């Protein structure tokens, strides 16, 4: 059955073409930024959206946490070791929230360039170790944080 075989070949050809195009588009999309997650540098340079909710990630600068009116409102500074952004949040902070720790805040910028967080999530790292071992390790995250201040 020659015509049947020819049809099958065309069909397989189309499928291969479709699959390779699909792969090409998928690979192409990997080159673009898919994270809707902005470091403080982008925020300071104005790359982050002005009028929308987005995620801001960074490390809480040591000594920056303050409660200005002794209430629930917390103000702290986030850094990506390059630029820093002031964040304000009203509510209960998670356990893992502490100075020098990476967090993700979800919220928007106000007119003064202060990030008003609606939610603060502590991002714990993928390391699990006993405290005594931790103490013997040098924490590479500390020096730049000090510089930022």
């Amino acid at each position: 059955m020659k015509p049947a075989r020819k049809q099958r070949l065309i069909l397989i050809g189309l499928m291969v073409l479709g699959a390779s195009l699909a792969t090409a588009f998928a690979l192409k999309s990997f080159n673009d930024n898919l994270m809707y997650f902005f470091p403080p540098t982008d925020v300071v340079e104005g790359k982050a959206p002005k009028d929308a909710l987005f995620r801001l990630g960074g490390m809480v600068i040591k000594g920056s946490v303050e409660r200005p009116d002794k209430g629930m409102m917390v103000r702290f500074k986030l850094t990506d070791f390059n630029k820093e952004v002031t964040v304000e949040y009203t509510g209960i902070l998670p356990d893992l929230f502490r100075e020098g720790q990476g967090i993700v805040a979800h919220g928007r910028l106000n007119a003064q360039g202060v990030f008003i967080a609606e939610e603060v999530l502590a991002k714990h790292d993928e390391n699990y170790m006993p405290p005594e071992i931790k103490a013997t390790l040098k924490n590479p995250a500390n020096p730049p944080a000090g510089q930022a201040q």
Partner: protein
Amino acid sequence: MAMFDAFAAIVRRDLVLAMRRRSEIANPVLFFILVITLFPLGIGAQPKLLQAIAPGIIWVSALLATMLSLDSLFRSDFDDGSLEQILLSPHPTSILVLGKITAHWLTTGLPLLIVAPLLAVFLGMPNQSLSILLLTLFLGTPILSLIGAVGVALTVGLRRGGMILSLLVLPLYVPVLIFASNAVEMASTGLPVTAQINILISMLLMALVLAPWPTAAALKMSINS
């Protein structure tokens, strides 16, 4: 080529059929409009809030509308024996099934695109994201039809297939929902969306290549029950 003639014949037949029972086209669109108008009523007319969740609302409604229309994809063919004839055709079943899905999209997915701009305006979506909304619907709704076809082929022989169908199909719709609504959301804040669009194109092509196979296999299985 006989195979492509058969494909075209199936598409043409289903379009003629849809024209002769117009409610089949009208129902999903009406449902789509209705669900979207329910949101402002349920949430309260807060323009800012509505605007923020508009992409999500439109896409979730499109998803539900497509899912409700899925049953008509193979139901009448199953009931009157046309499905048996399609499965006995010497042409590859997957191509014939693709013809049916194409016609289904033309009659249920495409009308959503036509009313979407209107609804976007209702919800106060900014103009710059309108074209992206249409683009995502254009790329995304065929994926919904293709994935849905697998689910409906699995359940067409069941008497109470409806509930099961949503359980099978909705989880698989998640990626389309995420990328499409996200693209619209990003577009409304003026961010680039090429990545999301590329992924939608990629998913559409993958679905086109892959989905007809399990659909054909599932129909062969369903015809026994």
